[in-house]
């Protein structure tokens, strides 16, 4: 540990709290601006003004906004994220049943994607301009260009409907074997990978190639380093900052953006919970999801910045 890093971490944690506060206000204001409220969504098509008013009163929605916000905030500070306005279940319970799912999906995908993307990025930087590079870029760009729902649906049609290798739905409680785990996660992970790999791979490639222009890379060549070594030990360490940030951005997508995958594979994760909560204007739930997402994002961003600082001694000392 060195002083700038300690300083970085400390100021980051302080800033994170402020950021979370900012996000909570923004989310609250957002839910307020959005037309309609829980009462209306709960009543759906049968929402008549009196019915809405009645339900609204029952849910304390008739109180002024700031009071509701501070009441929520007060409870949150005591560690209670409140209850869902929609089904009156504790938010903590709703989240805790979903968060692990999201984390599992995210980590499995990350474990698959990040290494693949980095390897692809680095190797295509090494063999830039060659057939390998062109094919790798062509493939990743083509898959990222296809809408996610199309990829997911296509995979299901091929691998679940026709070949029957994998199930079309990925949710199962109580996974017993590794084989089952693999089968359940194969398609969602593949789909997410298609979306994610491109960004990481392309940024890795670009950042690495960019550093290859430097004189120290020239010097490495003159030391007899082969292209692989030049890239791995000379270009890559200097490209870690942008790469780490691209990875952090992609990974943050896994938690909050896996909505399409969660919908198509009927996987109960956080993204769908959040989207549901937004549609139903379930403020405490939206807040909780946004907080979790924000925390995760800030954490990833911090890791990326730490990696960035660690990789650049000029920033470190």
């Amino acid at each position: 540990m060195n002083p700038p890093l300690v300083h970085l971490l400390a100021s980051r944690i302080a800033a994170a709290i402020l950021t979370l506060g900012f996000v909570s206000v923004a989310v609250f204001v957002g839910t307020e601006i959005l037309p309609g409220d829980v009462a209306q969504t709960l009543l759906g098509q049968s929402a008549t003004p009196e019915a809405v008013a009645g339900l609204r009163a029952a849910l304390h929605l008739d109180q002024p906004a700031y009071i509701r916000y501070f009441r929520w905030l007060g409870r949150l500070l005591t560690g209670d994220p409140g209850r869902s306005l929609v089904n009156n279940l504790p938010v903590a319970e709703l989240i805790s049943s979903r968060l692990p799912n999201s984390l599992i999906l995210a980590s499995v995908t990350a474990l698959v994607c990040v290494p693949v993307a980095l390897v692809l990025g680095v190797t295509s930087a090494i063999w830039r301009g060659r057939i390998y590079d062109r094919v790798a870029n062509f493939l990743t760009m083509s898959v990222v260009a296809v809408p996610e729902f199309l990829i997911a649906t296509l995979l299901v049609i091929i691998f679940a409907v026709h070949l029957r290798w994998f199930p079309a739905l990925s949710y199962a409680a109580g996974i017993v074997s590794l084989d089952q785990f693999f089968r359940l996660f194969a398609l969602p992970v593949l789909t997410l990978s298609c979306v994610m790999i491109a960004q990481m791979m392309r940024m890795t490639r670009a950042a690495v190639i960019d550093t290859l222009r430097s004189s120290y890379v020239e010097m490495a060549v003159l030391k007899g380093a082969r292209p692989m070594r030049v890239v791995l030990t000379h270009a890559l360490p200097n490209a870690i900052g942008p790469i780490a940030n691209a990875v952090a951005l992609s990974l943050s997508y896994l938690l909050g953006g896996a909505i399409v995958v969660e919908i198509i594979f009927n996987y109960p994760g956080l993204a769908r919970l959040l989207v549901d909560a937004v549609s139903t204007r379930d403020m405490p739930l939206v807040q909780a999801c946004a907080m979790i997402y924000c925390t995760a994002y800030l954490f990833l961003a911090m890791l990326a910045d730490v990696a960035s600082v660690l990789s650049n001694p000029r920033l470190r000392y």
Partner: protein
Amino acid sequence: ETAYAQAPRRGGKVKVATTNNSTADTLDPPKGINQTDYSRITTFYNGLTTINEAFAVQLDLAEEITPSERATVWNIKLRRDVRFHDGSPLTSADVVYSLSRHKDPAVGSGVRVLAAQMQEIVATGPHEVRILLDAPNADLPVIFGEWHFMIVKDGATDFRVANGTGPYKCKEFRPGVRSIAVRNSEYFKPGKPYLDEIELFGIPDEPARVNALLSGDVQLISGISPSSAQRISSAPKVSLFETRAGAYHDLDLRLDLTPGSNLDFVLAVKHMLNREQIRRAVYRNYAVIGNDQPIDPTNPFYDASLPQRPFDLDKARFHLQRSGFAGQTFPIVVSPAAFNSEDIAQLLQQAGRQINLNFEIRRVPADGYWSNEWRKHPIFFTSTTPKPTADLAFTLNYKSDAAYNVSAWRNERFDSLLLEARSETDISKRREMYGAMQRLVRDNCGVCIPVFASYLDGHASHLKGLRSIPTYGLMGCNFAESIWLDQ
């Protein structure tokens, strides 16, 4: 068909995928708002009555329902052999509690309007309940067949687990995820239910739902879009199941706003609807041509003699000229929330081009459509579910003071006919009155009903016992106690 020929087999597990799934999923009957909720509710609860394939009322928890004083006071006798899942017997208190709850705004009941007529709900004995209505209503037993009116335990407030009298007990329920229902071995209907377990969840994405059925991950799905029907009917080991019902997706013109306030304009639009084309292109023929009035051919009071309004651009042009709106542009609000609204609007737009009338389609989010956009614009769309009776169909959506009179239609003659018909007991007279009302709506109301859409469900071929009940798909959401697996 064959389902009848065979004796139902016991045992087996079934996974059912419906169309909705969100944290708003509920086990509290009054709060149900979609097919998923209704299907769960019927799995765990019973109503006093149900509605059968022939659109007729059948007693369920009630042993006897008798009207008196011209259908203003109703006496209900309950079955004595019914127990809740927690073992407690069904009593009149449960019924009184269940029915009264609807009137409490805090419950957020979807049928508060219907419950409002029940002025007094009292237990007159351990198994007797008396209901006093504010006006005569011969259709009250039908109303009790509504999913929202299912009977819960007296005093129940915690609906994390269902405690009903229904064919299955609730083993697990997670809003937005799934529910698992296991056989209620003490179900009061002998021999039923057949399955050991039903897992129910929603897959909102239609292609995903269809794929789940095709891949064998689920055995029963609802809400198949007409464009997927072909895939299912041609696939091996799965079958398509069509329920003809009076559901319609209507284009509504508000009669109190320009341009709908001009009857010629309304008629022009009605003539511009190419119903054949809509039926073919949008519904792939899984629909019945509509005639701008809400009573569909499955309804006993459907008036077949009413002439079908044709697609006639000349007439439309004529009315348009008369309305003076020719050459103008009007927005149509569409939304994914109102099914097929986008497609129908686009076909209308095309027709409009040919007679010099421009429609500008404005798509708004499904999110919040019903509360923020619906009925707030001159031209918009509605999705209307089938109503168990002609009376309800008219009362809820067409009566001048109806809460969901979407086109703001006011017609005194229609209102008085409606009241008359409600208390009329002579079937042929009633038919006549309903016929006249159908004509009135067709010719004057701002609601344009191009077709009545069928409900399309799909199931694994070895899943048996499905019959079509014209109140909704999935046997009017009441499949749980009837389906079984053939091995």
